[in-house]
């Protein structure tokens, strides 16, 4: 086993946030599911509510809420990961050992991602509540989970890049949050603004996603919530939207990994 992974996991689980964050996370998610259930079952005072509709509502609410929460948590685990070694002056010791830059990165990546995945796994029973109401099958759970993991892995890699580029955890975390905001909020605003300009200019409402010009659609392929939305499609309809998003996130993640390794190799502990 990579010694970095063992060290990182040991240190991480000794931190207070090792148990505090999962507890808070489940509490928030529990509150969200209760609220969603309440909204879905008291809709206009109707009595003939279909269980499948409740199931779908619960599932979608949970999937988006879970992604939003995890996107908020990812920078906490990844962006401080390398800067903490710089701050406590231990990075030089790692870099002059026989651990390669890739092993150091992998140890940091696995430990930060595993912690987020721990949160994801603990929420699976909550997500599966939707089963009880129907309307949701194993495929939806599977594709949602895979998509969420892909997004989180990519964001963890970006967080680690910020961590390698800055000296202080506070700066790395701030830039990491700015990146999360840029790809979630800014891309959505950009899309909706350009879309409304396009619709008013052409006096038409686009009937389908692919009727929208690519340059207007493009920012949404970087948007994690859009990526998650594409995963709700049946398996045969994953192409091209889901595949494109997955490609974009893999490329972003790979770029972040390459730049992080470059920083570790060429900047030492600076």
């Amino acid at each position, binding site marked *: 086993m990579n*010694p970095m992974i063992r060290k990182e996991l040991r240190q991480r689980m*000794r931190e207070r946030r090792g148990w505090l964050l999962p507890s808070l996370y489940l509490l928030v998610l529990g509150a969200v599911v209760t609220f969603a259930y309440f909204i879905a079952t008291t809709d206009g005072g109707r009595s003939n509510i279909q269980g499948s509709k409740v199931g779908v509502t619960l599932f979608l609410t949970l999937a988006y809420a879970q992604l939003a929460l995890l996107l908020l948590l990812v920078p906490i685990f990844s962006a401080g990961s390398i800067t903490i070694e710089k701050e*406590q*002056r231990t990075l*030089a*010791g790692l870099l*002059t050992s*026989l651990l390669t830059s890739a092993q150091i990165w992998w140890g940091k990546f696995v430990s930060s991602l595993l912690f987020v995945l721990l949160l994801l796994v603990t929420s699976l029973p909550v997500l599966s509540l939707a089963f009880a109401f129907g309307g949701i099958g194993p495929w939806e759970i599977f594709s949602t989970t895979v998509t969420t993991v892909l997004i989180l892995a990519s964001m963890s890699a970006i967080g680690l890049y910020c961590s390698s580029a800055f000296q202080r955890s506070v700066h790395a975390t701030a830039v990491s949050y700015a990146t999360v905001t840029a790809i979630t909020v800014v891309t959505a605003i950009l899309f909706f603004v350009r879309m409304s300009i396009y619709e008013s200019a052409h006096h038409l409402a686009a009937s389908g996603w692919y009727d929208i010009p690519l340059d207007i659609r493009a920012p949404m392929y970087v948007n994690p919530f859009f990526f998650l939305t594409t995963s709700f499609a049946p398996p045969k309809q994953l192409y091209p939207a889901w595949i494109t998003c997955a490609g974009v996130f893999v490329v972003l993640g790979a770029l972040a990994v390459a730049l992080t390794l470059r920083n570790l190799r060429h900047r*030492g502990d600076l």
Partner: protein
Amino acid sequence: MIDVEQIRKGFTGTQALDGFTLHVGAGELFGLVGPNGAGKTTLMKVLSTLLPIDSGTAEIGGLSVTSQRREVKRLIGYLPDQPGVYQDMSVREFLEFFADAFQLTGAHNRTAVGHALERSGLAERSNDSVEQLSFGMKQRLVLAKTLIHDPKVLLLDEPATGLDPIARIELRGQLKQLHAEGITILISSHILSDLEDICTQIALIGEGRNARDTEGNSVIQLRAPQALVRICEIEVLGDSAAAVNILNSVAGARLLESGVGRLLVEIKGHDEQVAALLRALVVGGADVLRFDHRALGLEERYRLAFEGRRP
């Protein structure tokens, strides 16, 4: 063992190393001194494979620190200035982690950790948290960690910074012991008395280049049988102006300081030149009350080499 030839390393707006050259033989305990910002830490980081160089060559044991980094890492132990520790680990866990990081496995790993605990004198505190150790103990732990893979070359950047006198004495003892074991050591420090006590040679570095002392040497031989420059402390009766005039006529003599009845003179040469200086003073009519001579100490050499260069 360590061969550095004309290396240059620049950062934005500064040239940290500007053609520095250094050769350290196997088994030497070699010092490196220079003012703050002279390039000592950058040189240590280059040699420990942490920083790439812009030009020149740097080799340890015949291996390039830029293209054969992994092989070099097996050879060296690097102790940075202000080294860090993992406060939330136990002493044993800390050493075990670095033994793993140097790919020591099984019995070899256990032996190395045991030896490191013994060497650092922390065997009885192996299960204590690193956080509970004193500063001096942490420094011993970090040195033990640096030695865990039995390196042939030690690169120590300001290892005595922040240590109390007892800890400094212990560190000097450890370094002498390691030197006796045949390990090549390159140590940078501002504590010149420590270096003078333990080193065989000392290189001078200033503004990223080889600096030179008054004798024109960029490397000071501390164990040389006879020094080429002597310092004479002279006390004369009355005004020292007459004595100053006399010594100005003595070849190789240079006035370093003068006060009421007191002169500090540097003279190039051996005992004969010192005797000639005393003779010239007496024959010239100076009333010499005291005449003392000694070899130039490291501190004086350093002062003479770097006076006026401080940033």
